[in-house]
């Protein structure tokens, strides 16, 4: 690939991609206080990976985030979400009853906070992993994106 006439794109992307990923985590951990949550955060994280692969090629991306890893993350996210429900069941509550996760004094809501953060983390993993997997399935079938393809 001729890198010369994409130099501005590459430099800007190199500076932007870490900020996009960081913003994804901000959206996730700030989801209790502002718009956004695990779903949007997962999508933003996936976009940062996909943007990298669109600009620097799919092969280096697949070496950094392997397709197997993306699939495993997606499955882990779904299991994490379900796992919170099962833990609540084991601790004597209903399925996904976060109050049962942590016993604290009446009026306290630590269980709700922990439950919401953890299931949102599950959403983040499942969404980011699934999106990257879908992108790999589409883009992985052509070996390299040529300039004239745009």
């Amino acid at each position, binding site marked *: 690939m001729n890198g010369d006439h994409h130099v501005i794109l590459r430099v800007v992307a190199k500076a932007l991609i870490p900020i996009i990923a960081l913003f994804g985590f901000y*959206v996730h951990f700030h*989801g*209790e*206080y*502002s*718009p*956004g*949550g695990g*779903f*949007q955060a997962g*999508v*933003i994280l*996936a*976009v940062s990976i*996909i943007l990298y692969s*669109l600009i620097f090629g*799919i*092969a280096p991306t*697949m*070496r950094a985030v392997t*397709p*197997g890893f993306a*699939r495993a993350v*997606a*499955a882990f*996210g*779904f299991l994490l*979400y*379900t796992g919170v*429900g099962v833990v609540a069941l084991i601790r004597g509550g209903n399925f*996904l009853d*976060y109050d049962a996760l942590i016993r604290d004094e009446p009026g306290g*809501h630590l269980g*709700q*906070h922990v*439950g*919401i953060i953890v*299931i*949102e983390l*599950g*959403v983040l993993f*499942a*969404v980011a*992993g*699934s*999106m990257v*997997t*879908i*992108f*790999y*399935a*589409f*883009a*992985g*079938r*052509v*070996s390299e*994106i040529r300039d004239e*393809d*745009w």
Partner: protein
Amino acid sequence: MSGYEGSDLFIALLNITLLSILFVIAIAIARLRSLFAIVMLSGIYSLVSATWFVALDAVDVAFTEASVGAGISTALFLGAMLLTSRTAKAEEGITKIVPLLVVIATGAMLVYASIDLPAFGDPNSPANTHVGVEYLERTKPEIAIPNVVTAVLASYRGFDTLGEVGVVFAAGLAVVLLLGFGERSLGATVRQKDREIDTNANPGGEDER
């Protein structure tokens, strides 16, 4: 629209402007043949709708529309576009007219149905009187987090969200089942390149794999 009297005209102008932009983009998408331009325009369409959702005070929906519609869909469409040709074939004859008639009929029905909808922001509408008020009142003592949308999504409707995550995961799985993991063609090239790097690093060395 109580409390908004002074800015009613401004809000109306904003809505009209944004909706006209959406209309123009939609017409352009329908008339274009280049798939790349269509993908880019649909991304812009999502971005403008997200702006409009902000104007309607639906910030969470706007955020999702911006990240999913303008972000990931555009990237996925670009990836899918690489698998097919770059231009769409022009429709001819009856296939050109029938979709237009269907769209006009559906649009007319939707406009007719919208006459029965409560006014935007109406405090007496069903959405603002029964469950909505309940959530607003109960989130603070029961969940104790400031964002009611997150409380509804993750806690009150935790079961629904689990189902949605399952749907996303199943969608990823279905694409993989249909198209393959994406590493069959590319994994080979990656391994090939790795091998070349290894041989270049220690020329004449033994193949360690």
